[in-house]
């Protein structure tokens, strides 16, 4: 079954547009949602959660249309936003007391388990928490109501390496049973190299690729060669950088043929993001 099925999502703002965004996440897996700042990650996530009105498109969660079953589905979804500021003058205890009333399957045992795992003190005020602590608190809330789909916007970005590692361990523990699925956006791609099964890559409001992580990386090659080589492959490159040794560029694996006898390596997720971000510049002649 699909935990999340996003189809032909469109949303137009004055200066930005989500164009025909579609991707699917199978139940029991982790998907990383990547893209540079402003690529459309948060807008997509907010549309999925029905927090902003989309212009067109359909979103199904666990087989049900969110537009028709919003109340019911929100019980099954846990979400956390990296930058959310709660009522900062309240204590954790107070906020939890309010939040739990909204959830039928709230579990106090789970709640206290994560509270102690994350070393959160219930009597602290939100204002007294560090960024990392706030992320951990919002995750604790998300995990305590038995959510089947976790949608997390940059959950790891405010965390130190040790807390990030712990969080990734928790993600992996959560999906062991095969019932819980996780979609999380990030630009810390090392987190994804480790635990993500699938990657969805968004660039300027459009999905560039959504695939199994290794397949995605293997569908591109990073090639380098001399300036003379560059003129032969330039048209096929997604983008490239030149230096005194020659050039390095990103190319679709399918666009490599016998005429390309250059060194080719499988790129990292970072490299894919970087070269795609340069793409528009090449077209406009900025990097030529």
């Amino acid at each position, binding site marked *: 079954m699909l935990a999340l099925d996003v189809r032909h999502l469109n949303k137009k703002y004055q200066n930005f547009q989500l164009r025909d965004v579609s991707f699917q996440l199978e139940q*029991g*897996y*982790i998907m990383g949602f990547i893209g540079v700042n402003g690529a459309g990650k948060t807008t997509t996530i907010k549309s999925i959660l029905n927090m902003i009105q989309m212009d067109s498109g359909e979103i199904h969660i666990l087989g049900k249309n969110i537009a028709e079953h919003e109340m019911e589905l929100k019980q099954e979804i846990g979400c956390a936003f990296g930058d959310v500021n709660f009522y900062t003058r309240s204590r954790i205890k107070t906020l939890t007391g309010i939040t739990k009333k909204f959830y039928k399957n709230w579990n106090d045992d789970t709640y206290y388990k994560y509270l102690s795992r994350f070393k959160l003190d219930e009597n602290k005020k939100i204002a007294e928490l560090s960024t990392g602590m706030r992320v951990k608190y919002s995750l604790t809330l998300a995990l305590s109501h038995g959510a089947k789909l976790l949608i997390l916007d940059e959950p790891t970005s405010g965390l130190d390496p040790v807390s990030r590692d712990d969080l*990734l*361990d928790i993600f*992996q*523990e959560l*999906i*062991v*049973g*095969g019932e819980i699925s996780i979609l999380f956006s990030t630009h810390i791609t*090392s987190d994804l*190299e*480790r*635990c*993500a*099964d*699938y990657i969805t890559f968004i660039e300027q409001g459009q999905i560039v690729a959504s695939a*199994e*992580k*290794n397949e995605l990386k293997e569908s591109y090659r990073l090639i380098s060669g001399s300036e003379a080589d560059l003129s032969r492959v330039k048209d096929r490159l997604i983008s490239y950088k030149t230096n005194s040794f020659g050039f390095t560029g990103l190319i679709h694996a399918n666009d490599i043929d016998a005429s390309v006898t250059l060194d080719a*390596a*499988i790129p990292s997720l970072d490299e894919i993001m970087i070269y795609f971000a340069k793409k528009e510049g090449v077209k406009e002649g900025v990097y030529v």
Partner: protein
Amino acid sequence: MNVTISSTSEKPIYQQLYEQISAQILQGELESGYCLPPIRQAALELGVSVITVKKAWEELERSGLINTVTGKGCFVAEFTPEEMLRIRNEMVLKQMGSDIQYYKSFGLTLEEVTALLGKIY
């Protein structure tokens, strides 16, 4: 079973898993009938994605090194000494194949390569 994963290696992680486990099977460290941990459990313990482990297990099965028994798990297969030899040779040849590309890029002849290998083997 014993595996070490390097996230900085150029080899994809599923391939690292496949190579290390298959070596242990072929060297007799993992005997036939040995039960591999369930995919999701292994992913958690190794700190890699579920699909990575799935791919490694599938690759092991394709090579005839393990069998999947539905509902029970994955077990190291039974093989005759001849089969073992065949699988081992296939693996070694695959590795040699990529090494040979490297030697050829320097224009080395078979004789030259053999002579060089003789020096360090």
